[in-house]
C-alpha cells in the first residue's frame, strides 16, 4: 500500500481510522444516522438497487459501463473488491491498470491531467493534487450517501482546506479501509528470550532488544534502502509518540503554520533510535534492505521484531502462520501516552472522470456492503471503516488480523493516531527522512542533526 515499494517517496496516507474501531465496538458514540439507516443499507443496497435514490445502483445505471481504474500492484484489496462489485452489478466492469506505488506517486498528477483520466485511482499525498484541481471534490457524495455522519476521524485525513492544510475542508479522497501500524513479533523467538507478554514501557522493550541481541537473535528487522524509503521512520515515529503528544506531530504533517519536528521530545525519541542503531539492534545491511526483503526475512524467522502495518497481515498469516503476534509500541512510562501511525487507504476520482457517480457509488458500496467489508478484513487485514454501527466482520481464527483489530480501541482512547511523518510534504521522505536516517545508520548523522536537517528540508519545500 505505501512506501515499501521501490523508490517510493510517499508513505501512508494519513491518520485516524482507529476511532471508528472504537466506536464500532462501543457503538455508544454512534451518531443516529436516521435518513438511510446504514446497517440495512449495507445489506440491501445490492439486492434492491432502486430502493433508495442515494444508495441505488442507479448511479451506475443498467447499461454496460467500464470504469477505468489505476491500482497499486501487489495489494489485493481493490482487485478483489472490484471483482466482487462486478459480480453484483454485472453491467459494471473495470479496466484496471496497475503499477507500483513509487510510480503512482510520480505519475498520479500526469494521469489525472490526461485526456483519459481514471475514474478510480490509488492516491499518493493529496494536497498538491487538490491544489492543481486534479481531484474530484467528494462533498456532494458525502451528503448523498451520508458519509458525513460517519465518525469524523475517518474522513479527516481525506479533507483539504482551501489554504492547502490537510485535516479540514472539502473531501477529496475516500478510504477503502483503515490501516494501523505497530510492532510484529515472532512468537517462537519471543518465547526463547522469555517474553511472555508485550512490553508495557520503552524500557521493557529495550530490555527485550538487549536480550535478543545477547541470544544471537537479530532484535529488529527493518527496511531502509532508498528504493523502499527509510523504514526506520516507523520505530522513530512510534518513539516520538511515546515521548511526546501526538498533536504537534499531526500539525507538522498537516502543514500547520509554525509547526516544527525539531522538539525536545522528538530529540529524546531520536536519541533512543540512535542508541538502538549503535547497539546493533538492526541488521548490519539495513541500509540496503528493501521493504519486501525485510518482510521475507522476518516471516522466515530471521528477527524478533518488525515495525510494519496491518496491510502485511495476510502475508504474515501465509508465510508464518500462527507464529506472529502484534502489539502497539508502548509508552515511555507505564500508563503514559503512546501512539501509532494509522491511515485510510486513500482512493480518489479524477476531476474530469467520465464515470464519477458510479465510482462514488463503488466507494460507498465498499464501506457498507457486507461482502465488501468481509473482503476488507480477510484480504486486506484492515478495518473497513464505514458507518459507526456496522460491525467489523471477523477475521479467521488464529490470524494476526484479530490482534491488530483488537488494539484499535485502545489507540483511539489514547488519542494516539498519527498521520505518517513521511507524508508531510512531497519530497520530505525522499529528500529528508530517508537520507538522514541512512546517514544515522552509517554513523554520519546525530540525533540532533537529523531533526534539524529534516526541518530545514520541510521549510525549504514549503517555501517552494
Amino acid at each position: 500500500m505505501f512506501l515499501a515499494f521501490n523508490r517510493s517517496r510517499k508513505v501512508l496516507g494519513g491518520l485516524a481510522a482507529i476511532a471508528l474501531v472504537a466506536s464500532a465496538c462501543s457503538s455508544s458514540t454512534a451518531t443516529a444516522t436516521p435518513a438511510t439507516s446504514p446497517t440495512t443499507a449495507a445489506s440491501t443496497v445490492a439486492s434492491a438497487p432502486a430502493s433508495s435514490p442515494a444508495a441505488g445502483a442507479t448511479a451506475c445505471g443498467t447499461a454496460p459501463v467500464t470504469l477505468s481504474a489505476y491500482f497499486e500492484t501487489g495489494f489485493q484489496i481493490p482487485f478483489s473488491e472490484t471483482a466482487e462489485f462486478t459480480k453484483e452489478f454485472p453491467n459494471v466492469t473495470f479496466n484496471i491498470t496497475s503499477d507500483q506505488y513509487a510510480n503512482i506517486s510520480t505519475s498520479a498528477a500526469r494521469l489525472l491531467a490526461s485526456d483519459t483520466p481514471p475514474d478510480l485511482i490509488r492516491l499518493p499525498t493529496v494536497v498538491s493534487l487538490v491544489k492543481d484541481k486534479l481531484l474530484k471534490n467528494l462533498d456532494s457524495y458525502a451528503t448523498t450517501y451520508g458519509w458525513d455522519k460517519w465518525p469524523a476521524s475517518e474522513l479527516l485525513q481525506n479533507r483539504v482546506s482551501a489554504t492547502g492544510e490537510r485535516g479540514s475542508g472539502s473531501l477529496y479522497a475516500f478510504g477503502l479501509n483503515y490501516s494501523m501500524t505497530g510492532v510484529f513479533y515472532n512468537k517462537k523467538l519471543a518465547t526463547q528470550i522469555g517474553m511472555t507478554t508485550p512490553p508495557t514501557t520503552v524500557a521493557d522493550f529495550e530490555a527485550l532488544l538487549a536480550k535478543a541481541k545477547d541470544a544471537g537473535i537479530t532484535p529488529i528487522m527493518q527496511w531502509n534502502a532508498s528504493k523502499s524509503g527509510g523504514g526506520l521512520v516507523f520505530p522513530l515515529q512510534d518513539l516520538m509518540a511515546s515521548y511526546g503528544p501526538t498533536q504537534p506531530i499531526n500539525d507538522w504533517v498537516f502543514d500547520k503554520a509554525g509547526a516544527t519536528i525539531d522538539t525536545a521530545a522528538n530529540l529524546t525519541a531520536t536519541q533512543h533510535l540512535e542508541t538502538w542503531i549503535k547497539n546493533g539492534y538492526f541488521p548490519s545491511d539495513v541500509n540496503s534492505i528493501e521493504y519486501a526483503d525485510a518482510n521475507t526475512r522476518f516471516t522466515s524467522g530471521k528477527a524478533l521484531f518488525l515495525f510494519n502495518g496491518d496491510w502485511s497481515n495476510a502475508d504474515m498469516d501465509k508465510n508464518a502462520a500462527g507464529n506472529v503476534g502484534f502489539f502497539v509500541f508502548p509508552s515511555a512510562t507505564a500508563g503514559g501516552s503512546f501512539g501509532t501511525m494509522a491511515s485510510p487507504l486513500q482512493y480518489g476520482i479524477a476531476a474530469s472522470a467520465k464515470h464519477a457517480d458510479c465510482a462514488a457509488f463503488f466507494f460507498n458500496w465498499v464501506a457498507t456492503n457486507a461482502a465488501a467489508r468481509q473482503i476488507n478484513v480477510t484480504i486486506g487485514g484492515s478495518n473497513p471503516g464505514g458507518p459507526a454501527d456496522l460491525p467489523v466482520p471477523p477475521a479467521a481464527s488464529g490470524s494476526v488480523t484479530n490482534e491488530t483489530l483488537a488494539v484499535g480501541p485502545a489507540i483511539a482512547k489514547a488519542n494516539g493516531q498519527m498521520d505518517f511523518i513521511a507524508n508531510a510534504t512531497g519530497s520530505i521522505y525522499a529528500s529528508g527522512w530517508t537520507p538522514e536516517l541512512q546517514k544515522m545508520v552509517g554513523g554520519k548523522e546525530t540525533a540532533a542533526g537529523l531533526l534539524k536537517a529534516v526541518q530545514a528540508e520541510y521549510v525549504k519545500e514549503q517555501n517552494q
Partner: protein
Amino acid sequence: MKIDRRELYSGRITLLVLMALTLVPFVSMFTTALHPSGSYPVGIEWPADPQWGNFVDAFNVANMGVLLASSLFIVALVVPVSLVISTMAGFAIGHLRIAGASLLLPLFLFGLTLPYEAIVTPLYQFEKAIGILNTRLAISLPLIALYMPFAVYWMRAHFVSVPREISEAARVDGAGVWALFLKVHVPLARPAIASLGILMTVWTWNQFILALVLVEDPTQRTAAGALGAFQGHYATDIPLLCAGSLLILLPTVIVFVAFQRQVIAALLQGSVKG
C-alpha cells in the same frame, strides 16, 4: 611476435579470470532463480530441488507474454521506420552530397552526446499536448528521433564509401534519383542496413527511461521498461525476480549470439564512426 611461456600463461589466466568475473553474476542469477520461491538463497548454490517452474511462474506473474509482445511491437515500428528514413538521409548526405550537408552533420552529432534525461520532461509535456502519451507511439517516436544521429551518420559513412562510378553508370542509363536509390544503392547497402537494424533492435529492447516516463502501463512498454516495473512488484521474491530478469534479457542474448559477428562489427564500427 615471440612470446615467452610465462607471459603466455599469465595472459591466458588473466583472460580466464575476467571471463569468470563477467559470467559469475549470470550464473549466480541462474542458480538463485532455481531456489524455492520466497526463499533467501546465499551466493551461488545449486538448490537441492531445482524449481524450474519458477520460470513459468515468473512468465505468468509478470504477464510476460504481453510484455514481450509489446516490446516486439515497438521494435517492429521503430526499426523499419528508422532504417528507411536514415538510409534516405544518409544517401542524400553521403552520396548526393547535397549543399548544406556540412551544417547537418554537427546538428545530428549533437544528438549523440545528449543525455535523454535532459529532454524527458519536455517530451512528456509535448506528447501530452498532442495526445500520444501512454501509447506505444510515445516511446517509438522519440526513439526514432534519438536514433537519427547515429543512424544517419552510419548510413552516410556507408554511402560515402560507395564508388561514384556506380551512380554515373546508372544515370547514363537514364535512372532518376529515386530509381537510383531504390534499384542500385539500397541493394548495395543491405549489409550496412542489416547491422544497423540489429543494433537498433537491441537498443530498443533495452530502452528504459523513455518507457518509464512516457508510458505508465508496463504492458505498453519496452522489455527493459517492463523489467523495471517487474523489479518493483516482485522484489518480494528474489528467486522469481531472477527468473523474470533472465527471461527478459534472454532475447537480446539470443540475438547477440546468433548475429554475434554483425553485432560486434556494427557496434565497433558504429562507435568509431559514430
